[in-house]
């Protein structure tokens, strides 16, 4: 880096540091403020004049020693109450790293602040008072860290001076907390015995804990590996702002929130689905050969396509879920208005703000015990799982895979306040992940493991997801082929029935496990209560998709043959299956051909207005954007079409 060349050596030492953001949690009086004060003090982040102020303040309060805790305690109102009640940010640095501390209070009513502080943290420091052992609050802090996807947890067992630096006391706490943490989705937990007040194992290693041979708190913070936590795989670029200095240049400004991108690579813009290539990655410091996660850049594209704020640029073959229905864990943050199932909200996701409503509150999670129970609402500091519907599609990933595209806030449109923070749980969409989840669900005690929430959640605490002891993998092994869903979509008369029936016959004769669902066998039973309004047709398709999934899990190749006019419904069917197991077949023909076929005279009746809501005439049909197979039956024969579909299915199930 040439910029660094003309800088003195001494100064260079401080320039190349990594940034680590951590949050601190502990119950009142566990010694959190003292620990932070100690780190700031010992790393010389406290200045002389602050020290003098501190001494004056400590004296005014009638204290003999300088109270390090006073350093981190901000507003006067809080000082008077003697507790901190909001998230405060502190800074210090060592030659290795710059640290940003989100300091949050551990009071039971302040889950909100802990969630806020945790949202950007790489690591959580949890304090436990050695005299008290593992209390409910300590578990709550771990649970919130897990919920917010903090990759690293550091448990400081504090006040070791008050338990004579006892190894037994420490070991018991480590054992208890380790047992508890197995229920969490935190994969890196470290324990350190400390005395924040005396400084043992905070910055320097203590002689009073000879039995402990791990790192000090500061050393751990300086050396824990965070580079591997980044998502450098899934390129996501929410457009923030469009830059148009003149007619010939249109640049899309934003931050690469995950993944990497190079000029020349193919991209797709969501929701339009328009494709192009990256022409240049522009920055003030010159064009880049590659942009990666965390960089703020400007992208320009080869083609003049229209992308605006709130839209997202991704790679063609790696896109997030496009959906108007999400399931999420929300943490309620409004102290006046509880969650409402009738009210409307604004949902802010990346740079996109859409109207939304909460269609269902599935259950509440007790932050202390992690137990789930049904609930009518959520109030301040309560956490629960909800289903949300939005007025426009969102482009989401599961929070577990992507904190930036898996998170959102809800805003009350009347007060404009931020009322909830949400973490999206999408259905699993990767085959390996899917099988792993099944395995995990089998092992977990019912309802106890948050990891099982990766599946669509049960609606009542009494029904928990039971994976059979026999897995899909077992069934596929015995069948000698994989399971799949082959979904035919297209207008009436386009050839769905003809080709799908022939497909079923052929696969059956080859000895494969195959089942077919169509309007005839569904409308009379599973959906006999539904009519033909848009709402009902969508519900019908949803039921078919879920039924197909059950048959899929039983190892079947499931053929579905439905007009299924809405892309979103078909995408739902695709999304609830492991990736690569859904074959969408689009049968089509020009309108004149369709009308001339019209075996039941339906088009004619529809045009005369005798049938309401007839797809293609009086009701819309959204053609698939990238189906696995397209058969234009005006051009191809049914036999030709069949061979294409058979090839595609073989590619999946073999």
């Amino acid at each position, binding site marked *: 880096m040439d910029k660094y060349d003309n800088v003195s050596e001494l100064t260079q030492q401080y*320039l190349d540091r990594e*940034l680590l953001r951590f949050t601190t949690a502990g119950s009142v009086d566990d010694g959190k403020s003292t620990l932070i004060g100690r780190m700031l003090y010992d790393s010389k982040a406290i200045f002389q004049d602050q020290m003098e102020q501190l001494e004056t303040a400590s004296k005014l309060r009638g204290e003999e020693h300088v109270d390090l805790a006073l350093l981190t305690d901000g*507003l006067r109102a809080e000082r008077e109450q003697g507790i901190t009640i909001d998230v405060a*940010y502190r*800074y210090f640095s060592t030659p290795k790293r710059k640290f940003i501390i989100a300091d949050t209070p551990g009071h039971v009513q302040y889950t909100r602040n802990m969630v806020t502080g945790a949202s950007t943290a790489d690591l959580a420091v949890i304090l436990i008072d050695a005299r008290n052992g593992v209390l409910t609050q300590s578990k709550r802090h771990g649970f919130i860290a897990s919920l917010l996807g903090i990759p690293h947890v550091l448990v400081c067992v504090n006040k070791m001076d008050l338990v004579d630096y006892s190894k037994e006391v420490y070991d018991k706490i480590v054992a208890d907390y380790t047992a508890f943490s197995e229920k969490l989705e935190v994969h890196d937990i470290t324990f350190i015995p400390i005395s924040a007040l005396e400084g043992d194992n905070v910055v320097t290693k203590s002689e009073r804990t000879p039995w402990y041979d791990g790192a000090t708190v500061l050393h751990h913070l300086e050396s824990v590996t965070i580079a591997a936590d980044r998502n450098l795989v899934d390129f996501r670029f929410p457009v923030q702002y469009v830059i148009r*200095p003149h007619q010939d240049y249109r640049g899309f400004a934003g931050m690469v929130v995950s993944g990497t991108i190079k000029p020349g690579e193919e991209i797709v813009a969501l929701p339009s689905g328009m494709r192009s290539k990256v022409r240049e990655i522009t920055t003030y410091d010159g064009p880049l050969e590659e942009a990666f996660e965390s960089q703020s850049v400007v992208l320009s594209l080869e083609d003049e396509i229209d992308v605006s704020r709130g839209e997202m640029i991704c790679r063609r073959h790696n896109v997030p879920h496009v959906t108007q229905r999400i399931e999420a864990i929300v943490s309620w943050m409004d102290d006046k208005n509880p969650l409402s199932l009738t009210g409307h909200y604004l949902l802010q996701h990346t740079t996109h703000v859409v109207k939304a409503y909460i269609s269902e509150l599935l259950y509440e999670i007790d932050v202390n015990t992690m137990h789930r129970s049904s609930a009518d609402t959520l109030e301040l500091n309560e956490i629960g799982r909800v289903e949300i519907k939005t007025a426009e599609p969102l482009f989401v990933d599961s929070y577990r895979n992507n904190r930036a595209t898996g998170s959102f806030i809800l805003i009350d449109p009347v007060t404009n306040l931020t009322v909830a923070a949400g973490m999206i749980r999408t259905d699993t969409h990767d085959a390996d992940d899917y099988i792993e989840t099944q395995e995990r669900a089998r092992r977990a005690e019912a309802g106890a493991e948050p990891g099982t929430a990766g599946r669509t959640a049960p609606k009542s605490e009494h029904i928990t997801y039971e994976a059979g002891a026999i897995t899909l993998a077992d069934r596929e092994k015995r069948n000698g082929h994989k399971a799949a869903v082959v979904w035919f979509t297209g207008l009436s008369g386009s050839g769905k029935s003809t080709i799908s029936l022939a497909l079923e016959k052929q696969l059956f004769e080859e000895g494969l496990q195959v089942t077919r669902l169509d309007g005839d066998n569904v409308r009379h039973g599973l959906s006999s209560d539904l009519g033909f309004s848009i709402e009902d047709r969508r519900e019908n398709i949803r039921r078919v998709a879920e039924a197909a999934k059950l048959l899929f899990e039983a190892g079947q190749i499931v053929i579905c043959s439905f007009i299924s006019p809405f892309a979103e419904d078909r995408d739902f069917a695709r999304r609830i299956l492991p990736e690569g197991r859904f074959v969408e077949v689009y049968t089509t023909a020009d309108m004149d051909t369709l009308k001339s076929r019209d075996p039941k005279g339906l088009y004619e009746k529809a045009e005369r207005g005798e049938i309401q809501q007839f797809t293609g005439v009086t009701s819309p049909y959204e053609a698939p954007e990238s189906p696995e197979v397209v058969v234009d039956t005006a051009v191809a024969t049914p036999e030709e079409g069949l061979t294409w579909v058979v090839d595609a299915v073989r590619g999946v199930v073999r």
Partner: protein
Amino acid sequence: MSAYHMNHLKQLESEAIYVFREVAAQCERPVLLFSGGKDSITCAYLARKAFWPGKIPFPVMHIDTGHNFQETLDFRDYFLSELNAKLIVRTVQDSIDKGRVQEETGPQASRNALQTVTLLDALKEFQFDCAIGGARRDEEKARAKERFFSFRNEFGQWDPKNQRPELWYLFNGQKKKGEHFRAFPISNWTELDVWQYILIEDIEIPNLYLSHEREVVERDGVLLAKSSVVPLMEGEHHERRKVRFRTIGDMTNTGAVESPAHSVDDIVQEIAATRTTERGGRADDKRSEAAMEDRKRQGYF
């Protein structure tokens, strides 16, 4: 280190650029406040980067107390024209002349509190709905809880109890008519970060920051520059010292420090080793421990 490594300055820069773009996208009429100090210089420079190759899509405003160093004003005009930014100036003197505020009297008189009124009047005059400032959270305890997007009610006031939680990088910019925001792109920077950034980016700064000889008077442990707005009190006298300023504000209350640092590199080393906060040099903060908090409640940025 992997090819995808970013050092802390690059990360802070990217974060600040992100904040600037959020402001420009979410607010209709933002304005960048400029005091002439290193933080607002850094901010203006970052704004340029954020919208490159376009122009900065909002004006820059200076609230001139009339007690500024001439060097600050000269630098302001030069620097902003280099950035191709549009400058608006509103003066405290004007507010005094219009009877909006009353000047403090006596040798310790300061216009620091008065500029709040001038600022709020100017925001109203231009109907600005977001004032972007260069405040940092490490400056003072009361600022440690400040948000990137800080909500102000229709009186321009800040209510520490009524701030919106700020999660991830999702800034809630919803507001009603008359309400506005303050936005702080360099919230997460420390004094040292700012100087390191100025150093590696080679950003120009006013000479006041570098060591020079100047006539000063020592008052309550603070060195104030000789000027017509700082009359001598009984028993005081001017003397020549080798000084520089760590912050640049009004001549009435910006203290100089004795320092031999005559390059930005020297400054970085001095800060890295120093044991006094930059605010320690500001006379107005010494007036009360909770001084900053009180000013913030009234709409000071």
